[in-house]
């Protein structure tokens, strides 16, 4: 992630602003993944540990196109489209059959999908990572009133804002979105009103795939790397963000993602260099401590407010 500044001299306003933008960039990516995790949890009560596979499959699609000399103008839409198709396909092939069984069976299925996809790439492509070239502008920085920003961070923030705006519009203004919210609140009642559970679930998976695809796009632009477990860490961060925000709360997922991104950037900058590599460990411990005090996430109403 971008650190266009050096850690010397007094804490300047410019440094704070740069870190803030860094945090937003990273957090935006998590927010996109977390929102998808939250949408699927909302309609299926499933924590989808296979959500990272959307990024993995997209990564190989990007690799395949990149080695055929395609430009990023082709790769970008292909990555997003691949994530959407993969998401809907996973639902159709795997989750559809276990939808009415226990939550535990669905959870196991999501692990199963994760391992099957991973194994398939190990067996049929390679166990080692494949690299492809990143867009040239990825390390470009721009200077706005004396502060340097990485173009990629600014693009992520812009893309996040646009995708979240689009998601809010779908959820609030379209009958499809209202149906997703209805099913997320009370599935039986939604069915009673004539809402088709299949369609709502498919719509939620498609939307989650779109959001993951946009996150994958930036992730892959930055890493230029396809590996069988490429999606694992982003998925874990997304699930974590969704948990921080309170599973199933869509605004919570977004805020959880931003918060997680901010926390990571702060830890990376202020932890002593000797334990820099333990950022993820520290994050998980902090989140664990959080759950001791707020078991249903930071943004959930206090128990007394629950009806």
């Amino acid at each position: 992630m971008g650190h266009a500044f050096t850690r010397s001299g007094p804490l300047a306003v410019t440094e704070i602003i740069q870190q803030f933008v860094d945090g937003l960039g990273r957090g935006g990516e998590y927010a996109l993944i977390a929102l998808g995790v939250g949408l699927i949890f909302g309609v299926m009560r499933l924590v989808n540990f296979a959500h990272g596979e959307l990024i993995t499959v997209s990564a190989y699609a990007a690799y395949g196109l990149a080695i055929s000399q395609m430009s990023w103008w082709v790769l970008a839409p292909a990555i997003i489209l691949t994530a959407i198709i993969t998401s809907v396909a996973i639902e159709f092939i795997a989750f559809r059959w276990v939808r009415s069984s226990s939550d535990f069976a669905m959870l196991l299925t999501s692990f199963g999908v994760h391992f099957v996809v991973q194994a398939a790439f190990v067996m049929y492509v390679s166990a080692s990572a494949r690299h492809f070239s990143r867009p040239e502008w990825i390390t470009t920085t721009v200077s706005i009133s004396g502060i340097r920003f990485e173009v990629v961070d600014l693009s992520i923030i812009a893309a996040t804002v646009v995708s979240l705006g689009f998601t809010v519009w779908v959820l609030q203004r379209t009958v499809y979105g209202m149906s997703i919210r209805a099913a997320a609140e009370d599935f039986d009642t939604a069915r009673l009103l004539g809402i088709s559970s299949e369609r709502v679930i498919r719509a939620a998976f498609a939307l989650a795939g779109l959001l993951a695809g946009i996150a994958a796009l930036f992730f892959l632009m930055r890493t230029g790397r396809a590996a069988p477990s490429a999606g694992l860490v982003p998925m874990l961060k997304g699930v974590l963000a969704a948990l921080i925000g309170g599973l199933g709360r869509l605004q919570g997922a977004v805020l959880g993602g931003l918060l997680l991104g901010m926390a990571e950037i702060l830890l990376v900058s202020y932890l002593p260099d000797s334990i820099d590599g333990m950022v993820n460990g520290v994050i998980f411990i902090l989140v664990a401590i959080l759950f001791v005090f707020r078991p249903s996430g930071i943004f959930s109403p206090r128990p007394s407010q629950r009806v």
Partner: protein
Amino acid sequence: MATSGQLLAVDSAEVSYGPIRALYGVTLNVEPGEIVAIVGPNGAGKSTLLNAIVGLRPLTRGRITWRGRDITGLAPQQRVRLGIGLVPEHRRILTTLTVEENLLVSATALPGRLRRVRANELMERFEVLGENRSRRAGLLSGGQEQLLAIARALMGSPELLLLDEPTLGLAPIVAAKVFGIIDELHQNGTTLIVVEQNIRRVLESADSACIMRTGRIVERQQAERLAARTDLFDSFLGDLLPTEEGCPQRPVPSPGADGTCLHTERSASCD
């Protein structure tokens, strides 16, 4: 009893919750345009029967036909499209959606534009809903919630409307309004099945009534005849018309003169 003009026929329906059997071979025929009241003590299986008719509870045996067509295997959303609507027990409104959204997500068979037209119609008909259209439904009062639950079921213009304890927990004046709506729907030709604790009032509106006990329909009678049977009311502790905070007192079980032993046991929270 079976005639060609039947709208709904439930035939030897059995429903279980895991090992617990809730319906034992229930048979119920409903003619177009009639109001059937279903009364009986708590746990008799009244809600289970309505849920089975609308498809929320699968039958373990028996079948359900709609205009002569077997619908036993259809999903709830398919039955809704055929013209069956349910106002569920405890209303089950979607609290995180606005009043208007609650209406718009109903009747998904209608194309979007017609759905908005229909929602507006219903919000004019039930003024409180129109006044609160952009309000989160979770903020409504009990009576407003009930009207919303009814309006929502009416979105699809059902031919058969099932109401599960539509006046439970409502102030008398609001309960009277709900019965007014029931009568109005009846006059307009809608067929209704109404589960009610307020037996006396529901028998005034109904054409016939079924008494349910422990998963069976033990008796079906014309409403006037049943209304004349004072033993029923005694055993239900008279006319229960629950008020807002009101739970009826726990009644003393008393066997009916002709052997129909009906007694009400309110849940623990009511004591």
